[in-house]
């Protein structure tokens, strides 16, 4: 039991990275991690020893993330809009460089299911087969989602770069 717990806790940094990439907002991301950990600890028996704790936890997080997305679509429950939050406080811990902001914004512009596929493979280093298991889809679907996600990411980053150039020119 303690070994399992330790193995799970060791995955927290990577879970946080994945959640942050999915949701961008730090608090929302940590909420998702916390929900995932709670669910994991309440269902330790479902974790077959020998299975990678990371993939098991990613699967749990995927399910919670999709639930959350559904709820948000049904009814728009939001934190403060970013503009309002920005105007109120700018804590130094949330400092983002221009590059970092553009990447996060571009990620958010990708449809959630494609964002997940891209991040699991390109950032978290899962194989297509592993990502397919985590997401509950076919391996071929993983590839097509990644292909579209990459196109969307590229287009968003290009847009951001263009906007930045226009701003510089206007100055």
């Amino acid at each position, binding site marked *: 039991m303690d070994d399992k717990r330790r193995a799970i806790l060791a995955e927290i940094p990577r879970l946080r990275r994945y959640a942050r990439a999915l949701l961008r907002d730090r608090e929302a991301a940590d909420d998702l991690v916390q929900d995932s950990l709670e669910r994991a*600890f309440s269902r330790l028996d479902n974790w077959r020893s020998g299975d990678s704790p990371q993939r098991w936890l990613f699967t749990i997080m995927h399910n919670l993330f999709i639930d959350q997305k559904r709820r948000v679509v049904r009814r728009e429950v939001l934190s403060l809009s970013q503009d309002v939050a920005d105007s*109120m406080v700018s804590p130094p811990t949330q400092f983002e460089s221009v590059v970092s902001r553009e990447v996060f914004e571009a990620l958010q512009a990708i449809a959630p299911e494609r964002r997940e596929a891209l991040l699991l493979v390109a950032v978290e280093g899962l194989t297509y087969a592993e990502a397919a298991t985590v997401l509950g889809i076919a391996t071929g679907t993983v*590839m097509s989602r990644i292909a579209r996600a990459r196109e969307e990411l590229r287009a968003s980053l290009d847009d951001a770069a263009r906007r930045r150039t226009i701003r510089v020119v206007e100055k």
Partner: protein
Amino acid sequence: MTSREFSENDIHLALDGEMPVEERPAFERWLDAHPDMHARSHRFATDRDRLREVLAGVLDEPVPPRLSGVPLIPEDTMKGPPRLLWRSLGAAAILIIGGVGGFILGKVNWGVSVSGENVADRAIAAHILYASEKRHVVEVGADQKDHLVGWLSKRIGVRLVAPDFSGAGYELVGGRLLPSAHRAAAQFMYQDRSGARISLYVVRDPGSHETSFRLLKEEGARAFYWLGNGCGYAVAGEVSENTLLTLANLAYTQLEVAGAE
């Protein structure tokens, strides 16, 4: 020499480590022969590196205590309160550490509280219904404020105040008693000089634990809501999120003081 034709899909396979090693030399030659595909492959690799670079910092951040300290709880005791309690402890920690700026930030949370959402939903419905009234916007007017507050406090079962929003330009119009799923709820209606109205909605919810401020947007109006002091609160209106949040903060502070007396 090449055993198969390559296509754009192979760029992804190669980039993601899904291409068999023996196919790689032929793939590289194919890329060299197709400058557009070569450029595409290069660009995807660059974008991937940017992604990894931007996200790498998260791994080095210290893990917040609320995550490293998640307790091992058997599933049958996991329902509701303990979870919320745990989360509110995290929010409380942020609140204490963060001072005023952190206070506001700590009060803002993306998580969804079902009961809080219900409170906000009812508050919005009640606001839309009564704020549009011309003659009967309230049951008891602000001219009988003491009576109004005493009456609603008694019916709700907690000591209420009608918060002073005059600093934000809103004056009390009055209030009314409302049904809220077998409980009594109070609505205080306010108005600014242009006639724009906002309302504060309070319902007793003894089982609830403190939550952060959250925003619910619905067609026609929005509300900031929170739970605490055994009550659910919502400030609803059609005004900007900024104004609504200012009012929610004023209400929170004044109700907190009243509750502590």
